[in-house]
């Protein structure tokens, strides 16, 4: 699984066009425009050629890292990890990358799934050990959609069978209530364990313009980029505004999300000081040797 894709350098407009935000407000979703405003305005960025992992880092790969280095994740050090149970997010003892729902929830079946319960420090430590780094936010977006805008990695038409989102498991979801009913039923069946899928499960139909898999859904992915507004004058949600300069950008959405949260230009921002959850993972990037 250690294959990487060479992405040619490009100059492209990072972010979401205003007409896509207009479209979002016509869709059966309840989030306000200011919630998405940090994706705007589009701005030109130039990215040098780089290599990026075709897949998120897997449980087996992360296990090899810990076996060789003795590394302990932030969740292991704290003694608990964050899962979403029937009542919401909860810190559960014994939750970590090898036991994603708590004690006795680990399984070899997860080996080819993306690793979860990795904090920003955990992800950067793995990347350094592997001789790689986390992708920057522009690198992540370019690998997901190419230099021309597209909503999802495969194009502008939603297809629930090209990505691991909640809509793959539950069918079409148009509101939080429907999501909660689905998740309650899931939890009653097997508890709050991640609904990840093996990396590359949706290839080639779900692959991105650059040939990367799982860039929509499966796990949220950390990037190296410190959260910032594309334009400091943008009016966005006040709590999103407050994390600028503090959090790190997260991209791609996860198996927990609706279609609108797994768009290529969707932005999320994660607390980098030890926090992780059962839906958060990462992939790595590397600068080509000749350019180092």
């Amino acid at each position, binding site marked *: 699984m250690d294959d990487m894709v060479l992405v040619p350098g490009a100059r492209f407009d990072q972010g979401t066009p205003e007409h896509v935000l207009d479209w979002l407000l016509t869709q059966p979703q*309840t989030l306000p425009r200011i919630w998405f405003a940090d994706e705007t305005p589009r701005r030109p960025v130039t990215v040098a050629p780089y290599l990026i992992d075709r897949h998120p880092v897997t449980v087996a790969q992360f296990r090899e890292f810990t076996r060789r280095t003795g590394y302990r994740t932030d969740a292991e050090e704290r003694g608990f990890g964050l899962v979403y149970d029937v009542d919401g997010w909860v810190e559960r003892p014994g939750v970590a990358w090898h036991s994603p729902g708590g004690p006795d929830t680990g399984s070899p079946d997860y080996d080819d799934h993306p690793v979860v319960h990795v904090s920003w420090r955990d992800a950067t430590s793995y990347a350094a050990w592997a001789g790689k780094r986390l992708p920057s936010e522009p690198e992540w977006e370019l690998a997901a959609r190419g230099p021309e805008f597209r909503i999802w990695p495969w194009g502008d038409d939603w297809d629930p069978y090209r990505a691991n989102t909640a809509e793959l498991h539950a069918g079409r979801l148009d509101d939080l209530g429907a999501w909660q009913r689905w998740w309650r039923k899931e939890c009653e069946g097997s508890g709050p364990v991640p609904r990840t899928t093996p990396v590359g499960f949706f290839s080639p139909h779900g692959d991105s313009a650059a040939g990367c898999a799982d860039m929509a859904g499966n796990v949220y992915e950390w990037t190296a980029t410190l959260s910032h507004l594309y334009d400091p004058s943008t009016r966005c949600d006040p709590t999103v505004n407050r*994390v600028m300069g503090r959090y790190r950008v997260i991209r791609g959405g996860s198996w927990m999300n609706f279609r609108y949260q797994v768009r290529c230009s969707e932005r999320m921002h994660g607390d980098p000081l030890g926090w992780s959850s059962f839906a958060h993972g990462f992939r790595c990037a590397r600068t080509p040797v000749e350019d180092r």
Partner: protein
Amino acid sequence: MTVRIVVPSVWNPDHRTDFESVAGPLPELIRRFADEYPGMRRRLVDADGTPLGYVNVCVDDVMVPRHQRDHTVVPAGSTVTFIAPMAGG
């Protein structure tokens, strides 16, 4: 004696973000606010009323570390911002 409370727009169906509460010890302020607005209760405290540790809290421009929240007193005129560990999306 009032403080301004700011929450994510997605915590309320009408997307309201600004509220008022009373100055005082931070844990008390959080519990009181959760009681006043039961629709946001599960996002702020657990079943026992203990503030959720993973929800970050800014008092004015300062992010209060988790281990200092029990001993933090919020003065009148401050702005308290509740921030999820993953913001936006």
